[in-house]
């Protein structure tokens, strides 16, 4: 049990709502006076993950577990899964469709940025079943 547990549904059908969950997490972390550097890293890493869920997986669920020393972010989707995780982790690699790219997304920086801004990241994925990304950001680096 974490001290503060937040749960969100990330809708897959409405692109304009992407970023709402990470925005709420940021707002709450500020309210509780969390370390500003950790807040920034949580909101960027989670935003990227949230966008990924909307673009590739038709949405999903997000769970954020906050403790004084760390924030754990779980992003669970039931989308197509990631066929080649290693490739997906490369900067610039993207399978995003053109309509998404035209909005300025899909540059292939999602997963690399999530890895960069979080302190730990684990991906469990199965093609055809979905993916779960678990990220941890420590309050103090």
């Amino acid at each position, binding site marked *: 049990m974490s*001290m*503060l547990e*937040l749960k969100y549904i990330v809708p897959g059908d409405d692109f304009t709502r992407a970023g709402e969950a990470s*925005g709420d997490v*940021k707002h*709450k972390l*500020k*309210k*509780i*006076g*969390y370390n*500003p*550097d950790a*807040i*920034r890293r949580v*909101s*960027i890493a989670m*935003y990227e993950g949230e966008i990924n869920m909307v673009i590739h997986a038709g949405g999903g669920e997000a769970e954020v577990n*906050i403790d*004084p020393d760390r924030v754990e972010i779980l992003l669970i989707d039931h989308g197509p899964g990631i066929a080649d995780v290693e490739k997906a982790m490369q900067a610039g690699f993207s399978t995003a469709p053109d309509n998404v790219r035209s909005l300025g997304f899909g540059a292939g920086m999602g997963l690399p940025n999530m890895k960069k801004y979080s302190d730990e990241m684990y991906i469990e994925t199965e093609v055809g079943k979905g993916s779960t990304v678990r990220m941890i950001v420590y309050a103090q680096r």
Partner: protein
Amino acid sequence: MFYHSVTLDEKSCVGCTNCIKRCPTEAIRVRDGKAVITSERCIDCGECIRVCPHHAKKARFDHLDSIEKFKYKIALPAPTLYGQFNNLDDMDYVLTGLKKLGFDEVFEVASAAELVSEVTRKLMEAGKLKTPVISSACPAVVRLIRVRFPDLCDHVLPLYSPMEFAARKAKKDAVEKTGLPESDIGCFFITPCPAKVSDIMAPISVDKSAVDGAIAISEIFPVLSGKMDKLTSVEPLSNSGIIGVGWATSGGESSALLKEKYLAADGIENVIRVLEEIEDERIGELDFIELNACTGGCVGGVLCVENPFIAKARLQRLRKYLPVSQNHLNRSGIVLGDMKWAQSLEFSDVLTLSKDLSEAMKMMGAIDKIVADLPGLDCGACGSPSCRAFAEDVVRGFCKKSDCVFVLRAKMKEVASTISKLDDDLEKGL
């Protein structure tokens, strides 16, 4: 520390919900039928003044007769002032009119702005500032960043506002010219907004402002236009160009940097959205961010008399045949030290739930639980701006959950049904 220009006239306040809903820092509550402003949260943006239908929110400023306290009186007109007059084609009319009102001298804030722009350009070229640099000209924005955006405090341009710099320069010049001691010289800013008044009374960047008072544009406008109508000749007083006058409208300060990678946003909600994006590193590569709390920039200030869009159109026409800039560092003998903030902007932790993180987290959990029980209408009838803010107020101990009319109604229904059941049971002889 918490002087505010924005105040409440209790007699006029009817306790409606307009101001509480509009306030960008959730600083206002209605308690016992009257609005109450939480001092440490207020950023003096003036949105509550703008929105109050009962004119119960007021701005404190100085009256024209207060200039008499000084032997030598200097007016510092904001460039916004020029946009208030119809068919104005020469700023000297306004400046000469100000002298007829009793000022010994006028020093245009627009001319100081041109020097601030040049110093900013130099600092940015030298790579001395953390990018994106965020403008510090709007005091409401600086105060907003101070209470809501800890990560962005060190992006704020650490230079005096044109107003502050104008007062310092005008005073120094006047001491040399008149031989009077500085205490005999009074500098009065002709202000478009209450945030500037607060910035004079409780400055963030300096210990004490060199500005001695602020007179609202709305107060000076009728008497000034009366004087201007009677002018038979004008003095050649104006000393500002396209750049200086441009500071009155959103985008003026940025375009004065002669760079392409800038963003200018105005209106407090838009400002907040942009600040969120900068914080999350989503704005791409920009060098400069100009933010104005009022729509249109300073021309949208709540103490202006003219519609901001009309004022903007007038200023565009007025600027058209001016030189680009009439003030230059190498000719003025100004150095960076004359303009640099004494201290950097420090985050003021007034919105967090508790200084103790574990305690704050427990409170956040309690707030989420209460929110789940509330109707989510954000009606404001409880006196808090939203259901979430109300839940926070309950957890902070400022009010009770039953202050929500819907919670109260549900409770009363429960009690009523218990009583009626009891009554039924009695009748049936149970």
